[in-house]
């Protein structure tokens, strides 16, 4: 007959194992793959752009002028 704390340990172990197993299975079966895409990150994601490099002229006329 297992005592209460052994059951507690079992539950704690299962609670840790279940997300790991389900997470890996989800990746294995590609369950959520459609929710992402394979586009690599832009360079700026890993190497910070300077402010003047970051800014890009859009389609909008410049109503405010230089700041």
């Amino acid at each position, binding site marked *: 007959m297992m005592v209460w704390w052994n059951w507690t340990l079992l539950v704690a172990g299962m609670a840790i194992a279940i*997300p790991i197993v389900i997470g890996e299975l989800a990746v294995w079966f590609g369950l959520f793959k459609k929710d992402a895409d394979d586009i690599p990150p832009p360079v700026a*994601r890993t190497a910070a752009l300077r402010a003047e490099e970051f800014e890009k002229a859009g389609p*909008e006329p410049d109503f405010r002028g230089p700041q």
Partner: protein
Amino acid sequence: MTPNSAPAKAERVGIVLVHGVGEQRRFEHLDGETRSLIAALRTEAKHWNAASDTDNAQITVEIAGATDSTFLAGQDTWTRGPQATVRIIAKGFASGDDATASSEIHFHVHEVWWADVNEPYSLSKQVRFWLWGLSIWRYPGKEASSLPSADLVMPPNLPGNSWLPVWTRLRLLGLGVVFALLGFSIGTISFLLKRLFDLDPPQLLQTITNYVSGVKLYNQRRRFGLGLVPSDEEFLDTIGEPPRVSIRRRMIRAIAEVACNDYDRWYVLAHSLGSVAAFNGLMETSWAWPGYLDQPLWQKLVDHRPPMAGPPKSGWTPPTGNTVPQRPVWGGTDIAYRQRIFECFRGLLTYGCPLEKFAAIWPARVPISRTRAFGPDTVWVNVFDPVDPISGVLKQFSGQPPACCPHPQNVGYAASSVLLLSHIRYLTPKKPVPDLATSVMRWLLGGIDVPGQGTNTFGRYQFKAGDRTARLRSALAWATWIAAFLVLAGLGGFVLPLVLKAAASAGAGFRHALSNLFAAH
């Protein structure tokens, strides 16, 4: 006098409230948050009058009712957009150097409500939610977008710390562990109480499912309806598009309406996941804007003087291919003039904000605009509490020019010492003042520093990222999580043997009945 008109002296201030994850009914968030702001304003009026020994500071609150109502309705109907739902008239509060005792400030409160975009509760939603909740730590990242005009935005930058996504995923794994424990303990106990004793315990798991599935919704490609094998059930104007488009549509619609109302200044106060919706709305590209609005509202932007929408600058080549949302057939090559739309926008307040976590794993969901739209007096204040696991210090949104996106000013606030409760207690009035609500109200009154800065701090509740209070509160949060883990595991350890024993007895009974059945033949 209509709610949007005002005496010549009155300064008109727009407030856009955006709710977070949850099951909020229409105007529920507006009612709760405005209640806190009104309480803060009343306290402020008392202080103001006591200091000046007058009763100059006064407040009046008005609700804009709708002209139509529902047959046999249990509640009165409030109006929503283009005019504000609630107007708060504050008289006699000094605002800036030119203020007089009789000056009025009219706060026009709007709500961005998107809780109905969440999927209806069903068995399949539960299954999908648990599958997602247990595997979210391995949910694929979203680094960039290939949509047309995606070059006009840029994902947030990792601040030289490539471990951030790993750390965020580990914390999400911890969340998955808590979900599993909840299933073993509270979930099983609720099930047994209902099935064996016909009791109706609080629907804790259903509430958690509906609350947290808002986060799931933001990453989904489709919105599902009812049924064991559910079919797509997007809103009619979002068929074939992710449900987050519907959420952003609500935000952008509110921005357009507020901009057209010509407030002297306006602010966005966004809670929890609502801060992601608000941020998306503020950063959306000029080219994508028409896809979010209906033609009459777009025409209102075009007809506004000066125009807030119209043709792009000459020589600009529109991108080819479909955007998300699709551009409308009436759109031509028209674009939104974000510089004009945000001309009177003065501030974004985010509290309980998960943007840093989104930026770590799904940066393409929270891109920063690369085009200038905001003036130098537009600020972004981010209020966090380490006890609130959803909130966080924003570090990845400071690499761009402030004209593209203001840099967040992170301010720590002791919302509550109780885990999870801290997430919904930011604007709850506290004593002694000043608390966050008071500080926000002072900021909205004008002529004072932003919340948490200079003379507008929130005293004993305020701290900085990384200081002693922040570290202590972080330790408190971890200790509470560990205690919750032990309690839930202990509960599970109590319930599991009972369930196994009951299952064994039921199995033995079933086998016995089967053997009797076959023996009889």
